[in-house]
């Protein structure tokens, strides 16, 4: 954690109710959260616990309930308040990089073009309309691709790359964007273990080297304890734990989530050279 205590993200009393017919689901229940600039925080929880919903609210892609005083501030700028999008939200979005579970690259555009689009929020709009990106901006895109290790595919269409490579390209796009905060919403949920490890390592590296605040929602706690010093755990839209990731032993998780906790635990070690190696003793018990 840095010595600078400025809050990068401030969520206060945020609630979100989904209505479908006569059924209402409380996806977020008065969530309050503060994340300091330069932190790398994991957001964990079982499916349906509200991780993605919270992420989408912070990135200004979804509006909270109108009732109540729920509000979100990112880098000191309001994103939404009382269920209304703030005026300058597009400028805030430009400073926040979002990484999605499904990568959200444009398949038919080259990797290079996908990544250079990160500058759209910072350049005059008309330059973007006509695709007039400067040499400098293109070089920056290439540089970002090199940092995540896929610059050799720059001219290929995004659709020709593997999921892990596409996700790293999405990280490169956030780098080109000059994002000060990166919100990664289940970035490794649809990747194989090796690609997942690489994506997490890239996120950890840009957090370490560039001081970018990273919030990453994860399905499996093992990745949280390995890469993120701090974890926020959600259950049924409420924060049930907020503290050092090391405290999240498997026993504690079972206590927090009961039987649902099982899905948060990886059946095996993450693999690769591990900073905090886990032994096979954490294998899931035979019957849950």
């Amino acid at each position, binding site marked *: 954690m840095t010595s600078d205590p400025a809050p990068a993200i401030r969520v206060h009393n945020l609630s979100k109710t989904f209505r479908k017919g006569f059924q209402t689901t409380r996806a977020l229940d008065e969530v309050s959260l503060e994340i300091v600039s330069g932190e790398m925080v994991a957001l964990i929880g079982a499916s349906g616990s509200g991780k993605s919903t919270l992420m989408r609210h912070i990135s200004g*892609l979804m509006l909270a309930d109108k009732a109540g005083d729920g509000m979100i501030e990112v880098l000191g700028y309001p994103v939404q308040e009382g269920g209304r999008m703030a005026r300058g939200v597009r400028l805030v979005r430009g400073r926040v990089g979002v990484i999605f579970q499904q990568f*959200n*690259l444009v398949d038919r555009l080259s990797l290079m073009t996908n990544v250079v689009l990160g500058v759209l929020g910072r350049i005059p709009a008309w330059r973007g309309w006509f695709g007039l990106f400067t040499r400098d901006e293109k070089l920056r895109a290439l540089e970002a691709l090199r940092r995540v290790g896929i610059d050799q595919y720059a001219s290929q269409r995004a659709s020709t790359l593997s999921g892990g490579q596409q996700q790293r390209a999405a990280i490169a*796009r956030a780098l080109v964007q000059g994002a000060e905060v990166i919100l990664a919403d289940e970035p490794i949920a649809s990747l194989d273990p090796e690609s997942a490890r690489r994506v997490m390592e890239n996120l950890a590296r840009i957090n370490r080297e560039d001081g970018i605040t990273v919030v990453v929602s994860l399905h499996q706690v093992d990745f949280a304890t390995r890469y993120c010093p701090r974890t926020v755990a959600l259950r049924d839209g409420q924060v049930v734990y907020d503290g050092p990731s090391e405290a999240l032993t498997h026993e504690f998780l079972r206590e927090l989530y009961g039987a649902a906790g099982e899905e948060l635990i990886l059946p095996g070690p993450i693999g690769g050279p591990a900073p905090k190696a886990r032994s096979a003793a954490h294998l899931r018990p035979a019957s849950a």
Partner: protein
Amino acid sequence: MTVIDNTGSAAQAMPQLQLPERDLKRSLVNLAGWAVALAVLAWAWEGSEMNPLALVQDSANMAEFASGFFPPNFHEWPTMLQEMLVTIQVAIWGTVLAVVCSIPCGILSSKNIVPWWVYQPMRRLMDAARAINEFVFAMLFVVAVGLGPFAGVLALWIHTTGVLAKLFSEAVEAIDPNPVEGIRATGADGIHEVIYGVIPQVLPLWISFSLYRFESNLRSATVIGIVGAGGIGMVLWEFIRGFYYAETAAVMIIIIGTVTVLDMISQVLRERFT
């Protein structure tokens, strides 16, 4: 659980299979549907004065009439080809102008891009452009801008814009919203979202639709000449009106040949883009 088979032990655990019961209500509805369909056919038969017997009774007349077409008379082929080229030129410009207009009109008719108070009026406008046949538009434009191919271009342009905008917007409504969200999250504006998130996804379909419309515009362009909007249709109409059936046959052969060749070219192009 009933034992229905004692040859295998695995089958013993299976409950007896039962066919779903026949639903009386559904069969009745089905039957009623057929009755309505037949009634519509009978009703339309009356109105269109269908008379298959005439085909047999007047077959001698028809044979004589048809014989007038043979052999086709190509004596005036330079004029015919010249006018055929004009028809192709009309189809090209009618289609190009329509494609250019259909891009904004198609986007503005898409539910997932603009609010209802934009797409509803836009869609109704496109409905109107589509509802009126290009033949009718041609007659109106001949009055407005005078006889000649330009009236034909205008007619094709309006009608095709109506058609293509609808097809374009249907393609846009079927896109994957995720990449668009990815673009939005970088702080891009709405136009950026369309240019980089939407258009790359729909482009192959749009190209295919446009080429297909060029094919049908070429066919339409041969007809709109009849109302004075230039091209081969005008020549065709002159010959038919003057009872020059051998020449009419020649023009028809030229039209068939041209349309076939251009259809084939456009088909090859379309396959390359999808």
